[in-house]
């Protein structure tokens, strides 16, 4: 197994003290169906550290006020805390300015904002929107809706047999008609990492903008939107130790400044008259109404937690556990198919698999009886499953709190699946 990290410079990074980390996550001490929880579904949502939960409680217990409005001290303090998270997040993703970071509900809303606002103003009949075959529905469906409304068309950039974007094929699809390239940075199904920097350079050469779905990458990779060279980057807090209900969109200032608002109403205005209004500068222009103040503030504690560990260390830990999982599952389970590349330098901590003739839902059910949480289904990526040639898959996904012993528990659970389904597994593939 190759464990060189091409995505990051070779620097010394301390190993994670996973036992200590686990003590920060109260849920990891719970029992499920009479067994210690083995949580292998962080690609769906991560678990939460006590520090984030405490920040949420502290806000409601002692800081609650509406922001950007009243002049009283509590409101000033809440506003300051809210804006502090914006600064932390801007630094975390390597954004040039906090003003370019907009809070939303989740990655999906962030991507809808780009498609609905930038897209409606800039995409016209005959234009092309390139998406990759690895897209989650969140970075596909908003573009379909835009294409249908404008007369533009969707062009699909293929992935190769390892689940990696086929750069030559992508290059051949780019043309003066290309207006948008929508890329998932890390596939939520295959774990594969797209070469966003190279894809952005090629897209910009034909005048297209690049919109990155970072829902899976922001929690797991050292990140700089400036190095990626993209134009928009979407993420969800709940996948990166934060609360649900908060997402963010980073966009280039000149694009955000020129875009019409997405939602309108309070907070996002400059001057309002009966028949017209002007807009506030970014980021307020895109944050209509009272935002999710409490969860944004608590998200700040999650970013602090990740930064204290160091994203290089998080990435290194996940490469190791992913390599261990791929090797272990393949060695102990001959009827398994693992999707995507084995090369952990271009793969995150997502291991999607099938066992011959056993439906993923049945795998998940038997694992659940042993307290092991994985995801079964199509993972909001129906077209990708057609390409993989399977109706559904099982997915184990890892994060900074997972241990190799949990991979062993998964393997023991799969042995139980094999016991229950022995006779169908031994038959030819259906």
């Amino acid at each position, binding site marked *: 197994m190759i464990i060189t990290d091409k995505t990051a410079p070779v620097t010394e990074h301390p190993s994670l003290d996973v036992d200590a980390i686990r003590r920060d996550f109260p849920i990891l001490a719970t029992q499920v169906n009479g067994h210690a929880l083995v949580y292998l579904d962080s690609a769906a949502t991560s678990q939460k550290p006590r520090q984030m939960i405490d920040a949420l409680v502290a806000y409601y217990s002692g800081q609650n006020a509406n922001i950007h409005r009243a002049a009283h001290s509590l409101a000033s303090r809440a506003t300051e805390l809210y804006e502090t998270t914006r600064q932390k997040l801007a630094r975390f993703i390597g954004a040039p300015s906090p003003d370019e970071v907009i809070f939303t509900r989740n990655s999906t809303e962030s991507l809808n904002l780009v498609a609905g606002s930038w897209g409606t103003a800039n995409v016209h009949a005959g234009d092309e929107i390139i998406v990759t075959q690895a897209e989650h529905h969140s970075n596909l469906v908003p573009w379909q809706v835009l294409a249908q409304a404008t007369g533009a068309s969707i062009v699909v950039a293929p992935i190769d047999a390892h689940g990696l974007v086929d750069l030559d094929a992508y290059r051949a699809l780019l043309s003066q008609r290309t207006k948008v390239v929508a890329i998932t940075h890390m596939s939520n199904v295959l774990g594969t990492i797209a070469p966003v920097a190279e894809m952005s350079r090629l897209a910009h050469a034909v005048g297209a903008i690049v919109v990155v779905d970072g829902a899976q990458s922001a929690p797991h990779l050292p990140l700089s939107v400036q190095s990626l060279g993209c134009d928009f980057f979407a993420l969800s807090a709940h996948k990166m130790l934060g609360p649900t209900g908060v997402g963010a969109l980073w966009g280039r200032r000149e694009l955000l400044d020129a875009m019409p608002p997405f939602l309108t109403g309070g907070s996002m205005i400059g001057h309002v008259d009966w028949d017209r209004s002007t807009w506030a500068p970014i980021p307020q222009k895109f944050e209509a109404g009272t935002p999710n103040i409490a969860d944004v503030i608590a998200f700040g504690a999650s970013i602090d937690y990740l930064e204290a560990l160091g994203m290089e260390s998080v990435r290194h830990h996940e490469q190791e556990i992913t390599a261990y999982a791929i090797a272990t599952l393949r060695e102990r389970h001959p009827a398994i198919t693992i999707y995507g590349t084995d090369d952990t330098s271009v793969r995150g901590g997502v291991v999607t698999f099938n066992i011959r003739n*056993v*439906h*993923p*839902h*049945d795998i998940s*059910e*038997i694992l659940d*009886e042993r307290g092991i949480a994985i995801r*079964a*289904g*199509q993972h909001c990526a*129906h077209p990708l*499953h057609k390409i993989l040639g399977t*109706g*559904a*898959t099982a997915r184990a996904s890892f994060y900074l709190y997972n241990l190799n012993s949990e991979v062993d528990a998964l393997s023991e659970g799969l042995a139980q699946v094999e*016991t*229950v*389904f022995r*006779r*169908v597994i031994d*038959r030819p593939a*259906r």
Partner: protein
Amino acid sequence: MTDQNPLYQDIILEYYEYPRNRGRVEDADACCQGNNPSCGDDLTVSLKVDQATIGPVMWDGHACAIGEASASMMTEAVTSQSADTARAWVKTVRAMITGRGDADETLDLGDIESLRVVRNRPARVKCALLAWEAFDEALTLAEAVHARPRESTDA
């Protein structure tokens, strides 16, 4: 297996290993799809209705062991039955699995009784009912086909 899994009873695994009436009915009067977008289950039920008798009925596609076993059991229960009896079967299985609605106590559930275990597993209720709901829809369509003038049998 030493300790029989409560959900994956031998009877369900046997149906999963040896599906009954799997495939497509040729020149079917109606075909209906049942799918479960979150877990990727996708079954198609096709059938013919001859006079007042249903048959043949077949299912095709992929689902979990519960979904596929249930689909096979459904085809066995409704084939050669009248539409009324077939509907009573659908209602009875629905009532057994969801705990809602009235069951026809006169029906002998037989192997179908094994599906009762999903009642306490909300995530599996849809799997177990998938083929039955698709059948119910297909039967309604087939009846509509027969109610129309002959030349428009384009289902």
